[in-house]
């Protein structure tokens, strides 16, 4: 199931980032191996989005090193991240409702023949891509507006794969999706892993994390708060790492419930 190689494809070493008076990230470490799904979890404001932005080149870190296949690199622009092979699917998907599936998949990297859009080639490749990912869509020539939320999410993920990335970052891909669509997206995440890609999955949903992730990296108040092997860790342990284990609302409630049961 896991083909984890020795060198991580992407490694963050001691990443720190400040916004004015707020220390958003402090000495964060993260490693992604090829063919591995790493869930990045943490409460609101824990620094997940900030960390993703440093990887995606949207908001470079103040300190720390990003290593790509063992070598330190600078990721200061979104373009630099894309060139390395890091694809990011943001939560709001960023699709054009009025364009069809083919148009959206190839937006910004259209296939051109003698200055003219090569619609035939783009359609052929779109069908090929969607069928290798087993994505079910009524037609590649209907506007995005006619697709369901889950189908849009799969199109957005498929689009990120066109640049042949090695690492895909998915920002809450299953938020706002129904049961069936969530299962489809999780299937897709597993197919990405089978293709040997490293996946960073940001999610608030523990069921999703337990279902597809190999490891869980927990952020709390901008710091690493443990990395767990999903199979060997219970949901409660992860949640206590997210919330801070010893004294918090969760443990207090736990104690209260335990007392009540007595």
């Amino acid at each position, binding site marked *: 199931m896991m083909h984890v190689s020795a060198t991580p494809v992407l490694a963050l070493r001691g990443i720190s980032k400040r916004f004015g008076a707020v220390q958003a990230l402090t000495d964060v470490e993260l490693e992604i191996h090829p063919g591995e799904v790493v869930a990045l979890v943490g409460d609101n404001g824990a620094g997940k989005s900030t960390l993703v932005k440093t990887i995606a080149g949207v908001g470079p870190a103040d300190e720390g090193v990003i290593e790509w296949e063992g070598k330190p690199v600078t990721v200061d622009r979104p373009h630099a991240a894309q060139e390395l092979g890091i694809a990011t699917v943001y939560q709001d998907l960023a699709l054009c409702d009025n364009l069809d599936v083919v148009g959206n998949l190839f*937006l910004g990297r259209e296939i051109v023949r003698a200055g003219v859009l090569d619609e035939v080639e783009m359609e052929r490749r779109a069908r090929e891509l969607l*069928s290798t990912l087993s*994505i*079910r869509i009524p037609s590649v020539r209907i506007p995005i507006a*006619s697709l369901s939320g889950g189908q849009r999410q799969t199109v957005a993920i498929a689009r990120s794969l066109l640049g042949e990335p090695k690492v895909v970052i998915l920002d809450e891909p*299953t938020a706002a999706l129904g049961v069936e669509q969530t299962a489809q997206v999780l299937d897709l995440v597993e197919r990405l892993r089978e293709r040997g890609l490293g996946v960073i999955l940001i999610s608030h949903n523990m*069921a999703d994390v337990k279902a597809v992730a190999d490891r869980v990296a927990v952020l709390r108040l901008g710091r690493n708060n443990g990395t767990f092997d999903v199979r060997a860790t219970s949901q409660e342990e992860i949640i206590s790492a*997210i919330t801070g284990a010893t004294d918090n609302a969760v443990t207090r409630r736990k104690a209260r419930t335990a007392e009540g049961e007595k």
Partner: protein
Amino acid sequence: MSTNLSKSDGAGDTPQATLPQDAQPAAEGAVTAVDPRLLVREEGFAGYWGEFRRKMRSGELGSLPVVVGLVIIGLVFQLQDSAFLGAENLSNLFVTAAGTGLIAVGIVFVLILGEIDLSVGSVSGLAAAVFAVLNVNNGMPEWLALVLAILSGALVGALHGFFFARIGVPAFVVTLAGLLGWNGLMLEVLGSNGTINLDDSGLVAGLTNHYFSDVAAAYGLATLSVVAFFALSFRDARRREAAGVPSRPLSEIVLRTAAIAVPAYVVAWLFNEYKGLPLAVVIFLGVVVALDFVLRRTPYGRKVFALGGSVEAARRAGINVSAIRISVFALSGTMAALGGMFLASQINAANQSSGAGSLLMNAIAAAVIGGTSLFGGRGKTWSALLGVLVIQSIASGMALLGIASAVQYMITGAVLLAAVVIDSVSRKTQKTAGRA
């Protein structure tokens, strides 16, 4: 216990998905990439008819309302005055429509972005004044003055685009300022005289009064268009077949070609009944076809549509949003200037009322009546052609019947309102049918 925990955590509130126990086999079972709910189109004519009915029901009206409208307008005026559908009247109608139509083509681009350009009337007047002053007053060669006049339109448009895209002023306000400002500059350029008459036999005069009187010209152009349309559709279908993607069957290509051939030859025959193929129509059609190609077949056009759909998505896809916006407004200014030359050519002069009056409203109305959405993201350059024919038919018919311009304005206003109502309703239907 675990539910309690996740609830107090605030993170696990989302309904927990029940995953298939064996996600792996389920994924493999899904390899058939066809959605079972997909309505597959039947082959042949039955399929074509079924597709048409489905489109009508789900609100994808396309050009149908405007074509029906043109037929109704034609019938109504023909019953009132039998000269309306005569060769002379229709030929003149096409020639007078060219100026406004060219301006409307530029408006189509701006509307696809989801913006508006209110300055096109003033810009067209300014371009005419620039040409007249350079050519008549300063003795510059006509072609050079023409190029400079059109360039001035492009420059003015780019300036609007700059204020909109870079400074962030709403396009509505920028072009409203332009509407007033460029009209003022035009009056300034024209000077105290107020009217500059153009050379009767010059280049600009020829724009609307030159006709290719050889019968072969009109029929030749019609034949060329029909053959080119058929050849391109056929080649496209063959390429699609070779690549294994769905293609149009030959019967459908023939049907579509016939649908184009009939009006093409009827119009060609009409032109030949009068003075021949008008130069204005050739240029107008050429611009519509060329810009249609740009819009639908080039990466640039795709970017324009993408901006009309979602600016943020376009930006993240690496599209230079400001550059596209500036270029579209520059194009709108260029088309306004070009249209202005045709309008000046009709009266053979540049005067203080150039580009004033109902020109701006007519150009925007033409684009909208023809089916370009005011909400951005949808439109065709052909809608400028169809829309301007509606506007010009009404104007021409009323003039023929001697109806006062007060009534003309009211009727044109009502037609515009009807077009926008159709646009809004069809958009709503498309939303409920999940197609918008």
